[in-house]
């Protein structure tokens, strides 16, 4: 396990390095003069040169990459061109609502998707299973922003249970303001988790070691919890890790719908203003979250299933 952990961490570091290089290249890939594009046509040429020098864009590309790398390692993300503050402060102020929103949505999805997925697998073939599967397909087909609007209409405006826009910091405030958007995010994820878990759970429940466990006189709950679920959960972990990556970008729409000042809406604003350093920083952050999610998923799977560790060791 330690050997596996070490190799996997090394891979994660390599991925991070690759990410930094790709994100760095975003700015190089901008057609034309990036500074001109950022500042617009009407800015005087001397100011363009000042900004270019301030951003270090007059240096050779490899020097720029090296500066970029060393700055990132020390936690310096640079200066926003249009927001007039450092990117760290900017991102930090927008991080909390997004982090809460994604965690909240994921928790809802994993809890409800997990319980319903196991239920559907155990009751496979019954009316309940059939209904759940139809419902899951329907939820998958609904775009999150539309679900968000419907939720806001029903629970926010018609029933007045939750505010329909804005964000209040703190746990209570976050709960009040983020519940509807979290549900909007979670609904389609519930469907993903439900379907993945149901199918792997069904396959495991059909296997001989489950029959053997039943033949030993174990209660059905023990069979499910100690033998079936643990073996069925690995594909779901992979899917959830991928979904986390999608969520980083996917929350942008929901944050717009519910006017939440999070990273998603910051990204939208930064793109509109062509504030490339901010776009870079958010891309870097999102990529890091994806890499870390993948790392956590792999380690979890290796901890749950010895065959995963073995496959890595031998191959």
């Amino acid at each position: 396990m330690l050997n596996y952990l070490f190799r996997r961490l090394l891979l994660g570091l390599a991925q991070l390095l690759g990410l930094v290089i790709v994100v760095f290249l975003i700015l190089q890939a901008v057609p034309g003069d990036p500074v001109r594009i950022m500042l617009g046509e009407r800015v005087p040429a001397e100011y363009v040169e000042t900004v270019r020098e301030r951003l270090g864009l007059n240096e050779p590309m490899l020097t720029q990459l090296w500066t970029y790398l060393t700055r990132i390692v020390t936690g310096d993300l640079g200066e926003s061109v249009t927001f007039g503050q450092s990117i760290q402060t900017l991102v930090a102020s927008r991080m909390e609502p997004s982090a809460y929103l994604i965690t909240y949505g994921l928790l809802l999805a994993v809890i409800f998707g997990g319980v319903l997925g196991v239920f559907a697998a155990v009751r496979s073939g019954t009316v309940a299973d059939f209904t759940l599967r139809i419902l899951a397909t329907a939820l998958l087909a609904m775009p999150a922003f539309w679900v968000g609007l419907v939720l806001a209409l029903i629970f926010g405006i018609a029933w007045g249970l939750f505010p329909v826009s804005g964000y209040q910091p703190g746990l209570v405030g976050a709960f009040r303001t983020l519940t509807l958007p979290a549900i909007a995010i979670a609904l389609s994820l519930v469907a993903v988790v439900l379907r993945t878990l149901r199918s792997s759970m069904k396959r495991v429940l059909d296997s001989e070691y489950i029959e053997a466990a039943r033949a030993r006189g174990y209660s059905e709950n023990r069979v499910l919890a100690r033998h079936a679920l643990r073996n069925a959960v690995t594909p779901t972990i992979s899917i959830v890790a991928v979904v986390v990556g999608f969520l980083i970008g996917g929350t942008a729409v929901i944050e717009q719908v519910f006017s939440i000042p999070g990273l998603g809406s910051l990204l939208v604003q930064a793109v509109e203003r062509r504030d490339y350093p901010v776009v870079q920083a958010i891309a870097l952050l999102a990529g890091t979250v994806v890499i870390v999610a993948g790392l956590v998923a792999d380690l979890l799977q290796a901890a749950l299933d010895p065959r995963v560790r073995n496959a890595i060791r031998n191959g």
Partner: protein
Amino acid sequence: MSEHVRDDELLQISDLRIGFGAKPGEASPIVHGLSLSIGRGRILGLVGESGSGKSLTCRAVMRLLPDGGHVLSGSVIFDGRDILAMSKSEVLAFRSSEIGMVFQDPFSSLNPTRRIGSQMIEAIRNALNLSKEDAERRAVSLLEEVELPNPAAKLRMYPHELSGGMRQRVMLAIAMAARPSLLIADEPTTALDTTTQAQILELLRRIRDVDGTSILLVSHDFGVIAEMCDDVAVMYGGFIVESGPVEEVYLRPKHPYTKALIASVPTLAVPERGYRRPTIPGPPLGTTPYASGCPFAPRCALARPECEDVSMTLLPVASAHTSACPFGGE
């Protein structure tokens, strides 16, 4: 039917009918009125080809019929109690301590993600009220009994780190954890190579000799049955077509199916030039529902028109030897 209750019988199945369908009322029967009994400390072989109903019969005794399987009628009396009438919790207690089961494929009958020790200790503690330490000690001694070398180290291993024969020994050790009085072995050696097969069979026999455990040994191989069992029941198409003491049936088979089955057992003798081992002609058991008469008639070399009206009742041949063929296989 000459069914008389004897006290020395551990398991008595009478007129068991099993069917498949969404509801018991709509189920199409697969096993048709099967009766058999296993004496205490005896090994009964249940032999027949795939689809003959052997495994279903075992599952019915375990109350583990797969989804859609229903017991339509009959009784399964174990040590004076009807298994089919037990409540759910009684069934769990029965499975955990009075009966053990080993399966065909030792590669898939152990949980691949948990260590041998954890699976054994779980089974032991589920059956007997032991502390974790005592259960672990018992696991070690069980592995010693099934002659697995270095048992303490084996407990820390995962199933994929053991060979097929070792896993089947572990399965046997788990099945014997609570010293059950009946062991069901459903094709326990089919997935193993010949040498390992002989060792596992030897071990089964030792379990019977030492613990006095009754064994229901399912196989499609009459050679294995002849070597291992005291009694044999031959199944075809959901019926027992012949049963009796194993030497009696093996040396003087009366049912054409039994005869064909015995004739197809390979021997070590060098065959003569041009010799072809007899096989049973015709297609194997299909999924067409049973109508009436002898199910083997379509493949039987000796079939005659009357076979369509045979009632499949077991008729006495000699003492304890019965056959469902009223024509004596001639």
